[in-house]
């Protein structure tokens, strides 16, 4: 029996289908001059609130569309669409993350040629979305103050793959023992290139820094 057993070299990326698809999406959007931003965070950290602030802040500068991922509701997309922004809701069922195929589906439902920026609101989760390339040109994440400053220690990959970290709900800082200096040190140790912005979607504090970053990145992208 055993002499019939042979070794077959495979040497293939398990996620190769997704990597290829994501690369293709990135290229297609680059030609269309539409920047794709993947926004990730835990549930309840303020993704939808930040997107609503973003829509206000980008009025007149960037034509923006939104792809919403949620377990099984259309609440977020309805909120966004009520602001007059093209939005599509992906029903991800029990899926813990978005992959490039799902994002491609969402893009098909948006007037991509007329948009400068498409924001993906990924599934609320700090683990799985970090592992799957969505085809985005930029990755950003939100950490909210009530979640705690220890999150980079628990979810290092998420902090490693992002270009920008928004620390939201800074209006809670006085009520908590959240240590901003420790957070910054932990995050920068994982990812020295990451930008860190402190904001409150509730009060509007710091939001202009986020809007400036989007405008700068979109301008650099169009060149």
């Amino acid at each position: 029996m055993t002499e019939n057993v042979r070794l077959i070299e495979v040497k293939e990326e398990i996620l190769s289908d997704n990597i290829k698809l994501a690369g293709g999406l990135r290229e297609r959007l680059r030609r269309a001059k539409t920047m794709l931003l993947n926004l990730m965070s835990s549930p309840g950290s303020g993704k939808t609130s930040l997107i609503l602030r973003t829509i206000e802040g980008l009025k007149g500068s960037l034509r923006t569309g939104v792809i919403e991922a949620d377990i099984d509701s259309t609440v977020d997309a309805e909120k966004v669409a009520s602001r007059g922004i093209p939005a599509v809701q992906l029903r991800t069922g029990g899926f813990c993350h978005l992959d490039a195929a799902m994002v491609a589906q969402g893009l098909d439902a948006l007037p991509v040629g007329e948009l400068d920026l498409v924001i993906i609101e990924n599934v609320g989760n700090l683990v799985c979305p970090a592992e799957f390339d969505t085809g985005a040109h930029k990755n950003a994440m939100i950490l909210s103050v009530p979640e705690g400053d220890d999150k980079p220690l628990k979810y290092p990959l998420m902090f490693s793959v992002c270009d920008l970290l928004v620390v939201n709900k800074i209006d809670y800082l006085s009520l908590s023992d959240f240590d901003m200096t420790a957070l910054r040190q932990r995050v920068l140790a994982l990812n020295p290139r990451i930008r860190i912005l402190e904001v409150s979607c509730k009060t509007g504090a710091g939001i202009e820094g986020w809007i400036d970053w989007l405008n700068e990145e979109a301008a650099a992208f169009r060149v």
Partner: protein
Amino acid sequence: MHELPITESILKIVLKHAGANGVRKVKTIRLKVGKLSDLEDGWIQRYFDYLSKGTVAEGARLEIERMPIIMKCNTCSESYEVEAAKMGGAICPACGGTGGTLLSGREYTIKEMEAE
């Protein structure tokens, strides 16, 4: 948490190579998975057993080699291994510098398989 789609991809790639090599039965599949991945080995095997029913890969055993997380120090360029839970506070053993660039630990590869 996302063992199911990963396992589907593994099976698809394995069956492709099995078909190309005229395999009658896949015995063992060897994977290289970085320690930064959250995959649970037991769940991958369980999903694989379920998904592979009726294929030449039914009953195959998955062997998962966990690849270490290697950081390259941003100060002195020394490479060193670190555990996932300590990545945020990693200190270079050579120069004591904090801050590094991830060199490996995110692997998701099928290395080889044993088949009849």
